[in-house]
């Protein structure tokens, strides 16, 4: 899985890397679901997720928050993630899976903005995102 956990005293950091910014959004959402225990192998449902923001950094946090809400509050368990549209101020994606409400492994309170920056390093898009646990 293209993410690694990063030490943070109070919470958890995830460092996500992908060839493009679009793929970064997908991989970050996948990493978040993995940390929460919200992934599943199968599902017949699909949900459209949208978020708005002032730039890609904010969009990434808002997008991940929408995914978090869907998993924690709506009980959606995720089998696949595709990004449909990413502009400077908006993101739309599709999550496949099911509303099974299967137990989660970890409670993530929030996706924070702390020191967040989407950087391009060695032809990869990289972001370190701190989750409040």
């Amino acid at each position, binding site marked *: 899985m293209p993410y690694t956990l990063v030490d*943070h*005293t109070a919470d958890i950091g995830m460092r996500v890397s992908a060839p493009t910014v679009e793929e970064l959004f997908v991989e970050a959402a996948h990493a978040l679901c993995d940390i929460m225990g919200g992934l599943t192998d199968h599902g017949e449902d699909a949900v459209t997720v949208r978020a708005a923001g002032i730039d890609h950094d904010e969009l990434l946090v808002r997008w991940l*928050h929408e995914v978090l809400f869907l998993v*924690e*509050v709506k009980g959606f368990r995720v089998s696949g993630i595709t990004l449909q549209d990413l502009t400077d101020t908006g993101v739309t994606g599709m999550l496949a899976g099911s509303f099974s409400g299967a137990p989660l492994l*970890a409670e993530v309170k929030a996706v924070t*903005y702390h*020191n967040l920056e989407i950087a391009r390093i060695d032809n990869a898009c990289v972001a370190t995102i701190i989750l409040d646990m």
Partner: protein
Amino acid sequence: MSGLTIRRLDPFRIEIARTPPMRTTGLVYANRAIERTLEQENALQQVANVAALPGIVGPSMAMPDIHWGYGFPIGGVAAFSRDDGVISPGGVGYDINCGVCCMLTGMRVGDVTPRLDRLLASLYNNVPAGVGSSNKSLAVSGREFEQVLELGARWAVKKGYAPPGDLDAHEDAGCIAGADPDAVSAKAIERGQPQLGTLGSGNHFLELDVVDLVADAETARGFGLFEGQVVVLVHTGSRGLGHQVCDDHVHGMVSAASRHGIALPDRQLACAPVTSVEGREYFGAMAAAANFAFANRELIVFLIRKTFEEVFGGSFERLGMRMLFDCCHNIAKMERIEWGGRRIDACVHRKGATRALPPGDSRLPERFRRTGQPVLVPGDMGRMSFILAGASGARETFYSACHGAGRLLSRHEAKKRAKGRKIIDELRSRGIHAMAASRATLAEEIPDAYKDVSDVVDTMTGAGIATAVARLRPFAMVKG
């Protein structure tokens, strides 16, 4: 700590010199042992970042349980002028009014141990805990839920879940004035409503302790504490409702900060003037979430009292179960502070810090006027906790003190160190009985993951912020 100029002022205080863009100095309460824990941390930079926000009054402070947070450091205390300062959701945190309450009992540890296994199992069954826990039996909705947000602990009393005497054992009598349920989003209500009356997970806990040392006999008597006494600590907050309120308003303030011309050293410090529309809306929503947390802890206390009644027979009053104190750890409050010889109306942010009023303070209920406010300092689950009393020196911290031991290890590192160990058995060998909804949570919360709370308390008492009253030793706990 690169780029910061730090000097030790005395055995209990470190100053961070003011350098641009800081508007004031940083002041960190730390003895030498605490200072060593900061060497690998970014927490001091976070103290400096807070010092750069507009309208800050006095230094940007951190209590000795300081550690790396997001935006503000954990342990951070900062006051902003109500006239030209800011309010920041990140300065309160996602778990709004996460806090702790201490309930006294009239029982000695020897009264409890013969039925301890049954008591612990019953508490585990009766108090919903763990990831995604909900409480259908205490569910409320509609206008009733709005009253929870408006009234806090007063709602619990009104509904008969708590005796009226509990109220003056709460910070602000268990209700932050100015709550605006209309400023709480539908998403926040959907996320938090089913969780009223639940402990949650992470570092939240329910713990039975014995008073194993009384340091100040007169104040302990005033608090109703005696050696050998069993007390109950509960640590939880506003659950998903608070998480969502904070998230909604951080999002709104990222763009508001830009509109108001506020430069942010870290976007998580997103803020708006206290007097702005965004600032007022956040305060109303935050106060509502804080009131949810007061009600949440009271409902958990209700469940604990019922459990004690089931296990030991008789009423909770006959068992001597009364609230000592309930306080906020993550909050922003409108308070009148003293700085530079002036009294200033300020919005005081405490993120991982607690209020600490000294003897004689008119804001205290009559029962604490002579003693000062109880300051509850939970340690880790294997060592000890403390009860302190606010002292006159707390004027310099705008009447704030530490809130706990403070984390030393990341959750990731704690899990690595716990791998292969049987934490429940380790605790049992120390005479501590534990039940946990999740083994992973238990691993994250191992005692090694925290600073030695004695160092934290020594710093607070040495600096004259609080005085030691009693030491507690845990002997049973439920972890989320």
